[in-house]
């Protein structure tokens, strides 16, 4: 706040000077205040930029040639950035980030900008997609830590993945369940270990019924409101009926291999009728565990509960595991930055002269050709600006990786490595070298900006 009061004096001194100076070449020139006055207006900004931005750049460059304890070591800090597993992972991840993130964000932004051109609630949509730009990477990080939770019952990403997986690949009903051990049981496991099919020991005739008792059903896989198992009604000709149930009476008692009144049926189990190794009929059990295989030709069959019923449940992707963690964090970044690209590109689209598009349409171009040959070339400068801005931003990405990665070296990038080395491990030489590398990487963008400015001046 003090600085606000610092500013007036030089300007106040100018009060007197401004009036007195009348010019060499008449009115316009003469009205211009003396150039030293500009110094007063610029002073606070130049002081801050000088001490806290320009001087540090020079200092970092110098510091990068000295090791942690301050002894000169030439380029060792720089070569060190490319040595050692963690450093190399950070370099590789940075490369992945720089190539992948800006490209995808720009494509998504272009897609959204084009799609919203035709809809009436475009403003609402843009607000929603742009909103994450306003919130911190820390908050976004916490948000996506929740999204990426491994347990599909807690993390929404895996909940969605598992739902999609189970829709297409079939839901595992009862992982770990299986037949009672020992000889002379009605059903037996086909093979050993977990997740193997269960088959009837004796063949079942068409028009007959079968009991398929299972054990070791974990409570969390039982239905929320279990229906007591029933003995299946007698089969009509051409049918096989039966019951698949949890052959276990709570608190003991109950007859093995018989349907007791408190034992619950197992719904949703796939049952197949096999003859000569071929599946002839297939169905699923009802809430009370009964099933009816219809249209079974006369003969004797083996009933099989295929292994899909018993394999371990699909748990979704390991988002924050060593392979997926960088793509997962980039996903969070897309969520934050797509709105930026969309808004810029939409503004670019709105600025394209309608005539150019109309002319192409009149010439018989399809919408796609108009887009590809007219819109995209006219948008090219905007797309370039978006890409460059994103590349610079991606090089600096720290918070998101720090928060979602949670210190996992598999997620690290140079911008994070710089902080870890300098302030976590106390090696400011290496830290400075990484900072200077980042600085060198943004230099092309710096030149791009300067060139753009110069062109505008002309």
């Amino acid at each position: 706040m003090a600085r606000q009061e610092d500013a007036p004096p030089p300007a106040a001194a100018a009060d007197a000077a401004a009036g007195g100076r009348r010019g060499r070449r008449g009115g316009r020139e003469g009205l211009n205040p003396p150039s030293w006055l500009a110094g007063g207006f610029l002073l606070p900004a130049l002081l801050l930029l000088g001490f806290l931005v320009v001087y540090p750049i020079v200092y970092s460059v110098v510091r990068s040639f000295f090791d942690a304890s301050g002894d000169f070591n030439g380029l060792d800090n720089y070569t060190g950035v490319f040595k050692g597993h963690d450093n190399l992972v950070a370099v590789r991840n940075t490369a992945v980030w720089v190539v992948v993130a800006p490209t995808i964000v720009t494509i998504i932004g272009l897609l959204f900008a084009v799609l919203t051109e035709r809809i009436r609630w475009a403003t609402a949509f843009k607000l929603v997609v742009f909103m994450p730009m306003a919130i911190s990477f820390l908050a976004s990080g916490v948000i996506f830590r929740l999204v990426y939770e491994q347990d599909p019952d807690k993390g929404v990403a895996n909940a969605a993945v598992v739902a999609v997986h189970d829709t297409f690949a079939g839901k595992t009903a009862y992982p770990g369940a299986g037949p009672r051990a020992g000889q002379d049981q009605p059903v037996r496991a086909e093979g050993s270990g977990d997740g193997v099919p269960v088959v009837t020991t004796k063949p079942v005739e068409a028009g007959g019924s079968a009991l398929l008792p299972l054990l070791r059903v974990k409570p969390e896989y039982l239905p929320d409101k279990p229906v007591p198992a029933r003995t299946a009604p007698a089969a009509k000709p051409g049918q096989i009926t039966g019951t698949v149930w949890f052959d276990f009476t709570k608190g003991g008692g109950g007859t093995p291999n018989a349907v007791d009144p408190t034992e619950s049926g197992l719904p949703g189990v796939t049952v197949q009728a096999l003859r000569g190794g071929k599946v002839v009929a297939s169905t699923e059990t009802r809430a009370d565990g009964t099933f009816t295989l219809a249209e079974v030709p006369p003969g004797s069959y083996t009933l099989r509960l295929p292994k899909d019923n018993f394999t371990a449940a699909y748990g979704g992707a390991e988002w924050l595991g060593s392979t997926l963690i960088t793509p997962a964090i980039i996903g969070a970044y897309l969520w934050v930055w797509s709105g930026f690209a969309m808004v810029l590109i939409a503004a670019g689209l709105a600025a394209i002269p309608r005539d150019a598009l109309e002319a192409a349409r009149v010439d018989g171009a399809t919408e796609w050709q108009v887009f590809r040959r007219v819109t995209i070339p006219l948008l090219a400068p905007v797309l370039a600006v978006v890409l460059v801005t994103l590349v610079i931003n991606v090089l600096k990405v720290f918070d998101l990786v720090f928060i979602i990665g949670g210190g996992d070296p598999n997620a690290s990038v140079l911008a994070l490595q710089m902080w870890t080395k300098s302030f976590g491990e106390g090696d400011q030489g290496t830290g400075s070298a990484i900072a200077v590398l980042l600085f060198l990487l943004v230099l092309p963008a710096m030149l791009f900006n300067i060139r753009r400015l110069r062109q505008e001046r002309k």
Partner: protein
Amino acid sequence: MSTEDSLTKDSAEVPAADGAAGAPRRSVAARVVGRVGGGVAQVVLVLVALFWLVPTLGLFVASLRSNQDNGSSGWWTVFSKPSQLTFSSYSSLLGKGDFVDSFWNTVLITVPATVLVVVIASLAAYAFAWLEFPGRDWLFLVVVALLVVPVQVALVPVAKLYGEIRVGGFHMFGSIVGVVLFHVAFGLPFAIFLLRNFFAAIPRDLLEAARMDGGSEWTIFRRVIFPLGGPAIASLGIFQFLWVWNDLLVSLVFADTGSQPMTKWLQSQMRQFSGNIDILAPGAFISLLVPLVVFFAFQRYFVQGVLAGSVK
């Protein structure tokens, strides 16, 4: 004449306003394709919008559930069991002294850092736009060059510099002042760039008139430039506000436990993520609430700032 004027004006504004103006003459087939395509686009966009809202909704709902519920089931189960909703996480978080302190530290850092950037950059931008001095263009190029300098390059040197500034009992390193000044310095290039472009577009006649009337440069700056620069200053102010409010890295390096803002305090609670959801979810939500309100209240200026900062 006047009707014709307003007509042309309207037709010129429509495409700019919603960007949806179709071609005036299109074949029936093209229109049908357009309709169907529009329908598909609508559906896709609704899904995308939901996709964008769900993560934040998840955080919000998680912040309204107990740790026990968050540990055993997903936040979406509240839709079937709304009885899980509770404010207990919020009330216990707001009862934590260090969290409340960190909230006020965020305010104490953000407000001065925003005001200072606006004032200092306005002065400099005015000089760049309307005062003549040797090396002006060259100096402005330097400012533009500094636009993209990564914060990382200044962390080590400024930490050392701050470490050496000790006046009496005041230590620059770890102080709010240090954090604020760092934010101001790194906000300046963008601020000066944005404001200079805006100030330069102010009609020269206005300034000339003021100078003719014998107004001092300081008066002109205060009475003419500053008020006319309103929209640009609003954009800049919002930008700087959000940038500082949301910062983690700068405060991680330069703030200590006494001067830490919310982001740094929340970061320190991250080590036990699952166990601390009852702190992290409401904390993150409180920390994003202020930016969100600012964003929705001033979104026009915010978008303008984005456009001015990058495209121009």
